[in-house]
């Protein structure tokens, strides 16, 4: 059975491994497995999604709030970021904007349970940013298909 304790941020993420992968491959297109950064303040969602991605052909790391997610993204240049929208301190749209500024090739996908996201998305659009949005609950297969480009 899945054990969420095994998937804390420190355990699930290995900067060294990913850094090495970058050095070896040189560009994203040559990576064996795409790297996905999963961000959600609901730990169970972040952990389960990360585990699903790992089992389905992706490298995956997770963060439980925006600021550490941004640090992780800066250091590891993920191919995809799957982030919740409504989060304390830094919301998903703010995170997505910051990531796009430093990593224009990273695809950011927002996931939301729909509470109060209208204003958050409008603020993002006013700054010239728009992002793909999936409404929670989203079936993992739907997300996997999107990430695999199927």
């Amino acid at each position, binding site marked *: 059975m899945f054990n969420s304790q095994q998937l804390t941020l420190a355990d699930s993420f290995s900067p060294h491994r990913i850094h090495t992968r970058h050095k070896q491959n040189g560009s994203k297109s040559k990576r064996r497995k795409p790297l996905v950064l999963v961000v959600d303040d*609901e730990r169970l969602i972040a952990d389960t999604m990360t585990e*699903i991605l790992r*089992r389905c052909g992706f490298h995956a790391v997770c963060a439980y709030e925006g600021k550490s997610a941004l640090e992780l993204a800066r250091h590891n240049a993920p191919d995809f970021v799957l982030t919740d929208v409504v989060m304390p301190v830094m919301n998903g749209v703010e995170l997505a904007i910051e990531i796009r500024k430093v990593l224009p090739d990273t695809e950011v996908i927002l996931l939301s349970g729909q509470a*109060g996201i209208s204003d958050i998305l409008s603020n993002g659009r006013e700054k010239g940013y728009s992002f793909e949005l999936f409404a929670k609950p989203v079936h993992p297969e739907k997300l996997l298909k999107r990430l695999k480009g199927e």
Partner: protein
Amino acid sequence: MTCKIRTELLQDGLLGLERHLLPAVSRLYGQDALIVTDADANVVYWSRSATRIFGYSAEEMVGNPLSRTIPVELQAKEEKMVNSLVPGALKRYETQRVCRDGRRIAVRASICALGGLADEPAGVLRSEREIPAGPDASVTASHLAAIVESSNDAIVSSDLDGIVTSWNKAAQRLFGYAPEEMIGRSILSIVPEDLHSEEREILRKIRAGKRIDHYETRRIGKDGTVVEVALTISPIRDRFGNVVGSSKIGRDISERKEMERRLIESEKIAATARMAANIAHEINNPLDSVMNLIYLARLNLTASSKARPCLLAAEGELERVSHLARQALGYYRDPGAAVEIHLGTLLEEVLSVYRSKLLAANIAVDCAFDQRRPIKASEDELMQVFSALVVNAIDAMPAGGVLTIETRELAEQGVEILVSDRGTGISTENLPKIFEPFFTTKGHLGTGIGLWVAHQLVEKRGGRIAIDSRTEPTCSGTTVSVFLPFQR
């Protein structure tokens, strides 16, 4: 003085009084008409000044009723005034009299009861002085009358019994009654029945000399419409300070009240939307976790595992709960940017979502789309509007039928969309409530949100939505018409 009069009365009756005392008093108060009436209000003494003021001689008046000098409409009031007199006490008031030549004059009257045998009032001693209606007074009066007539506020006066004594033009505009229809009539005729006790309370306060400021209430116009008014009511006093009536200044506040109601309604809706959004968030997050957990559990199983169908069924049920949560709570969503839309394409997309449901319910779809010019709107919002209409049409025809959807351009103004079903129809008593939040005719199967949200979204886009329904068995059905203008 009272003792002396009583002694005279005992000795000689009123004639003795007339002989000895009154001429002397009359000389002392030369400018006042001095009049004595008996218990039946017949004149027993009429001074020279009374003749000078009223034109009637003593011969004409003595033995005759005083009422010939009192205007008809004031006679009951005068009688009431006399009957309430306590022997020995003095009462002062202003009133009107009719002279021999028909002129009406204003008088300041002082009356005093004359004691009789066994303390029965034997009569009334009156002193009446004419109030000169000089040129200044008339100028002031006409000036004030012009102000009252040109006022935008309804200004109405009534006596202490609530009988209307004046009614300005603004009152006519506001309530629909002309002055001649209202003067002499009770003010209660414009007061709704459930507020009659309120009017009595107002009169009680006015009698006590109190003023009522900015009192918000309802009144009924001539055509039966309810008018919401703010009233300022003040007592009208005569020169001696007696309250003789009331003045009411009324302002129409119907528009403001309607705006207040709309504001409260939209605040309620916004609060409900916020609450729904929060509930949606609280429900959707655990659903997302459970969906991931079931998927993970499935990944751990072999293809032949007996748990596999159970997990697949659980996933299916979870999808169902997600759909319900989205339908019931998902109306608070980001509208997205406005884009150019051809409604035919959008409606076909809506129909494709519900294709399996339409097939299952044995409903045929008949579409006729005629729109060349696109409209600019949020695709997501219009999807929500037409999804609600299509779902309602499907639910209205559980035994099958035909769903008709038509679009047509209306003379450069916009596009009209008609969604019709041949279901059982909506009863007349339910029709007015159909766009109210949480009203449903589907029992526990409905949320009462679909049409309410559709209404909100269409109006927000500057359009209109209307519903027409028939319940006659041979031609029952419902048509919802939506109009969306090209220009917002």
